[in-house]
C-alpha cells in the first residue's frame, strides 16, 4: 500500500420511487472515498510522482469497492466519475496528480472497458467539505441519461495534511431520465463519445 489511508467509506444510494413513480429496477449509485495523508503537504514539490502513484493505487481500490458494494459484475457498471478535495496545507495540483495521470487505467479494469473520459472535479477544502463527483457513461460520454453527480463528503476530513479521494460508479442512469439524446443501446463505445 502506497497511500496512507486513515479512513475508507463506501456509500450506496438506491432510488425506488421518484415523483411517485416506481423505478424498477431501482437506480443505484456507489461512491467510495479514501481519506489519505498528503505526502506533499506544507511545501512546494516540483515532482508529484508520489501522488500519481497513489492515484493509480486508489483507482483500482476504490473502483473495486464501488463494484463490490453494488454487487455487480464489472461489465454491469454503466457510469463513473472521480474527485478529490485537498486539505489546506496542499495545493490544487496535488488533486490533479492523483486524478489524471494514472488513476484511469486501474479504474477501467475494475469496471471493464471504459472508453469514455472519466469526468472529474477537484477543490481545496476543510473538514466536511462536500464535493459533487460528476458521473458520465463509461463507454460513450454523449449518453444523456447518465449525466449525473453524486456528493462525497467526510465529516472529519480533509485535515490540512490530508486529501479526500472519491470514485463513483453506477449500474444505471438517472431515475426517470427523459431528456432525449444518445441512448445507451445506440452507442458504439469505441471513440469514448458515442
Amino acid at each position, binding site marked *: 500500500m502506497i497511500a496512507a*489511508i*486513515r*479512513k*475508507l*467509506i*463506501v*456509500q*450506496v*444510494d*438506491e*432510488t*425506488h*420511487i*421518484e415523483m411517485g413513480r416506481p423505478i424498477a429496477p*431501482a437506480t443505484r449509485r456507489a461512491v467510495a472515498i479514501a481519506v489519505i495523508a498528503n505526502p506533499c503537504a506544507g511545501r512546494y514539490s516540483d515532482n508529484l510522482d508520489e501522488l500519481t502513484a497513489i492515484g493509480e493505487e486508489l483507482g483500482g481500490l476504490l473502483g473495486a469497492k464501488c463494484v463490490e*458494494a453494488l454487487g455487480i459484475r464489472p461489465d454491469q457498471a454503466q457510469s463513473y466519475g472521480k474527485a478529490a478535495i485537498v486539505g489546506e496545507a496542499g495545493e490544487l495540483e496535488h488533486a490533479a496528480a492523483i486524478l489524471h495521470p494514472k488513476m484511469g487505467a486501474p479504474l477501467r479494469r475494475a469496471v471493464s472497458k471504459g472508453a469514455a473520459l472519466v469526468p472529474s472535479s477537484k477543490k481545496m477544502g476543510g473538514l466536511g467539505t*462536500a464535493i459533487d463527483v460528476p458521473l458520465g457513461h463509461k463507454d460513450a460520454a454523449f449518453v444523456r441519461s447518465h449525466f449525473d453527480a*453524486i*456528493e462525497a*463528503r467526510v*465529516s472529519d476530513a480533509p485535515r490540512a495534511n490530508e486529501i479526500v479521494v472519491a470514485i463513483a460508479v453506477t449500474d444505471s442512469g438517472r431515475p426517470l431520465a427523459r431528456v432525449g439524446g444518445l441512448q445507451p443501446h445506440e452507442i458504439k463505445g469505441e471513440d469514448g463519445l458515442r
Partner: protein
Amino acid sequence: MIELRRVFTHVECIFHEFGPPAAKPLRRAAAIALITNPFAGRFEQQIALFMDDLKPLGLELAKRLLAVLDVAASEVQGYGKAAIVGASGESEHGALWHVPGGYGMREVLGWQAAREGNSGQGQRSNGLAIVPSTNKVGAPGTPIDVPITHINASYVRSHLDAIEVRVPGAPRPDEIAFILVMSAGARIHERIGGLRVEQISRWDGQR
C-alpha cells in the same frame, strides 16, 4: 402501507485517528430508508399504529445494515438510531421510529431469550441496552449525529460514540429519513477508562 422511496447505505473503516493504527480497524455503518410521510402537511392525532406498519421496514433495514457492515451479528458492539423528518412533518413523526427501529436491530442481534422471559443470572441475550437516538425536522441534506452506545450496557465508556449521517437531497418535505447505525468496536483510540465491556455484570442494559 409503507412507500419506500430510497435506500442509502454508508460503511466506514477507520484505520487510525492520528494515533497508533489499530490492530483491527473500526467498522461502522449506517442504513437510511427514505419513506413517504403519510402524515405530512396536517396534524393527525392518531399516529401510533403506524409503528406496527414500520416494523417490517425496521427489520429489513437492520438486515441491510448488518450486510453492509459485513461482520457476523455476534461482532456488532454498538448501535443507535435516528430520524430526520422533512419540512411538512413534525418531530413526533420521527419518534415513530423508536419501537420499530429498536425492534429490527434487536431481532437481528438475537434477543430471543430475553423476550421469552428467561430472566436468570448472566447474559440473557444481545441488545439489552436502550438504543440511543436523535430526532429532528430538517431540510434535504441536513446532517444528523446519531449516538452510539454498547448494545448490552449503556455505561460502557469505550463505546460511547456518534456518527454523522447525511443523505444528499433528502428528506424532501413529505419524506422521513429513518436511520439505523451499528459499530463493530469501540472508539478507535479509546482511553478514558470507565466501565469496560468485560466488566458488564448486571446485564440490566446499563452495567
